[in-house]
């Protein structure tokens, strides 16, 4: 499976950014808000 990190240093940046924790929370919130209509 071609993962998102073909550029190895991006995987490292992702880890260093704690996997973009705030962005994950934002994406989850936006998805669930719209899912509830």
């Amino acid at each position, binding site marked *: 499976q071609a993962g998102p990190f073909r550029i190895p240093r991006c995987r490292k940046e992702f880890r260093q950014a704690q996997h973009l*924790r705030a962005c994950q929370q934002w994406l989850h919130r936006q998805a669930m808000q719209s899912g509830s209509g």
Partner: protein
Amino acid sequence: FEDDMENQQGPQQRPPLLQQCCNELHQEEALCVCPTLKGASKAVRQQVRQQGHQQQMQHVISRIYQTATHLPRVCNIPQVSVCPFQKTMPGPSY
């Protein structure tokens, strides 16, 4: 969704969580913004699957990628405006 974009442009109008997310993205080098956003979207998708929102699954997953696609522009990330994710196909690897 477009109007979501309008009122999230300026840092002072952004909700705190979105501002934190934009700060995270501004730390990334331009080349890695889309791959790391794709990684974050994948993590959220797995989380939603585990929470078992079966009845709205496709809609919720679609919304995750739709939101992630436009985050670079919402956050005014230099050199990156959108990330062309396809939620069902493995999108272009960066």
